[in-house]
């Protein structure tokens, strides 16, 4: 009887607070109190189309919720960029020299990646979690959690499922669902890296690679490789439209 009781306790689903705690761990680990700079390589495969590869620089200032994505390669895309400021996402196209307001679902540079894939994680702020199951994902034991968007929050996907590595707490898999309940995309995070941050006085986690699979247009996939992460303070001018415009001159 006691053994059964202990087993039940061991297998009991995490409470709501525990689930929120798990999300906070995910968010906090990726958050840097200071700045962030990295180089990303984005590889896009689309059905019946040639593969595309891009190189971009990511600049983040988590304290101010600011994000800049500047495309560096190929030459045709160099100078194109995105700026997130005050919950607005703007895109700059150097070929026409104009800024345009974009939405959360904007395909960054026309790839399968979105703003959320490069920005800081805000899962605990944006979603309310419920426990689905403890299961196996390949060799990993994971907690599968379902997230529903909180009222009044604007996100691209109102429902998300996460597979969190039980041992490390890292996200290994994520599925995004549309309002209709349809699965839109599946993202895998096969490996995580970490770097000590002076400003945070702790380690900042980031995925080495992100594999995004389009579940509506089967066959379309995007691979994002994150490299050369630097957590040193950045020039505040970087997070301005003028700076991004100057990069294409």
């Amino acid at each position, binding site marked *: 009887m006691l053994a059964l009781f202990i087993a039940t306790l061991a297998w009991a689903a995490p409470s709501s607070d525990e689930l929120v705690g798990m999300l906070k761990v995910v968010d906090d680990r990726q958050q840097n109190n200071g700045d962030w700079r990295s180089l990303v390589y984005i590889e896009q495969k689309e059905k019946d189309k040639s593969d595309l590869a891009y190189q971009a620089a990511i600049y983040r200032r988590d304290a101010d919720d600011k994000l800049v994505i500047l495309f560096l390669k190929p030459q045709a895309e160099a100078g194109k960029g995105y700026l997130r400021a005050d919950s607005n996402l703007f895109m700059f196209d150097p070929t026409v020299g104009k800024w345009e307001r974009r*939405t959360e679902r904007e395909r960054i540079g026309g790839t399968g990646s979105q703003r959320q894939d490069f920005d800081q994680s805000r899962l605990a702020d944006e979603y309310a979690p419920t426990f689905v199951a403890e299961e196996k994902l390949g060799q990993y034991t994971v907690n599968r959690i379902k997230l529903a*968007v909180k009222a009044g929050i604007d996100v691209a996907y109102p429902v998300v499922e996460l597979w969190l590595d039980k041992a490390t707490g890292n996200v290994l898999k994520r599925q995004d669902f549309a*309002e209709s309940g349809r699965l839109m995309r599946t993202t895998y995070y096969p490996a995580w890296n970490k770097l000590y941050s002076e400003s945070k006085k702790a380690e900042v986690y980031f995925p080495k690679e992100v594999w995004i699979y389009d579940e509506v*247009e089967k066959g379309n996939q995007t691979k994002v490789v994150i490299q050369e992460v630097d957590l040193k303070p950045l020039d505040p001018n970087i997070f301005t439209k003028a700076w991004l415009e100057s990069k294409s001159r």
Partner: protein
Amino acid sequence: MVLASIALRNLVQARRRTLLLSTAIGLVTTLLVLLLSISAGISDNLVQSATTLSSGHVVVAGFYKPSPTLGAPLVTDASKVRAIVEAKTPGLERVVARGRGWGKIVGPGGSVQASLSGVTLSDEPGFADTLQLAPRSAYLEGGGPEVVGDARRIGEPDALILFASHARRLEVDVGDLVTIVTEQTDGRSNTLDVTVVAIARDMGMLSSWSAIIDEPSLKKLYSLKGDTTGALWVYLDDIAESERTMTSLRTTLAQEGYALMDYQPVPFWMKFEVVGGEDWTGQKLDLTTWADEVSFLMYTVVAFDIVTVFISSILLIIIAIGISNTMFNTVRERTREIGTMRAIGLRRRQVLWLFMLEAIFLGLFATTCGAGLGAVLALALDAAAIPVPIEAMQAFLLSDTIPFSVRPLALSGSVAFLTTCTALAALWPSYRAALLRPIVALGYTA
């Protein structure tokens, strides 16, 4: 009268020369009429496709902004607005409500971005008749000339009408399921599986990014409830009254207490950026005409008109040089005859008129025949529905066949213009003939 008779007799006497010049002038007229017919055909297609896919003659639309940064092309409390429009529009034929959306349509062969026009069949019972359905050969490899599907089924739930170019790219046939992916006003993704109930013939550039969906499904996609629509399309008895009606409706709606956006003669989708940057919230109405909604397509008509003018001008210059040269030869050949006429009392002005009348008669005869031939050819070619195989060309011509439309004003204008040009080309030689002194002319030997 005597001069006209002499001029006619001279033309008949110099049959070979008259025939050669007439043929040249006539062919230029035929070409001009054909080019003008294509230009008119493009214009007609523009009006037809615009008032089927993009707008009524006048559009009462607007933007609804739940917050300063979010905005959608919606008219809330649409019935009230509609009642005002129906009551206060002179020369009104009908008003229809159309939903507006934008989404990605995903099929087995890939995906296309399309503007979604939401149709309520009970509101537009004649809608199905405005679309021409495409034969299966237009969108299916190995398809035959048979036409399948029924545009009236757009009244069924979760129904979609595609245009042939989209159906070809998506690799779908009537009865197939496709998925529409959209982004709601608050940025959330949504999807809907819909059945393709009909595939329509392409209508140029507009149809290359358009699809028609039943209005309730569109509302479902955007989670819209209640008395909301995308726009009210106002059709008038006379399309020429569009601008005046729009101005009058703006005044009426403002008097009824509606907030109006500043008038901008551009399609609604070009206003998102401006609206997104403004800090108002709530509903503002926006009124435009059909021409405003397709203003970005007007360049096709202008571009074709420029080509027409360019080609016609080059041919006209060649013909004018030919006419001038021929008239100079005629004057030289008939110098002694001019001398005789001057000697028996014909005044210089009458000699000028004689040669001018010859040119005018020649021009009138040749251009009338040329215009007639051009009109017959244009009508025959239009009936033959010559297909345009290149998609870019279809977009430019706003049709999947070469459109010809013969307008009486264009015919009479061509005749008048080219006859005037012929007369002007003959002016200098005629003037030279009139200047000849009788004694010199009589003693002239070739």
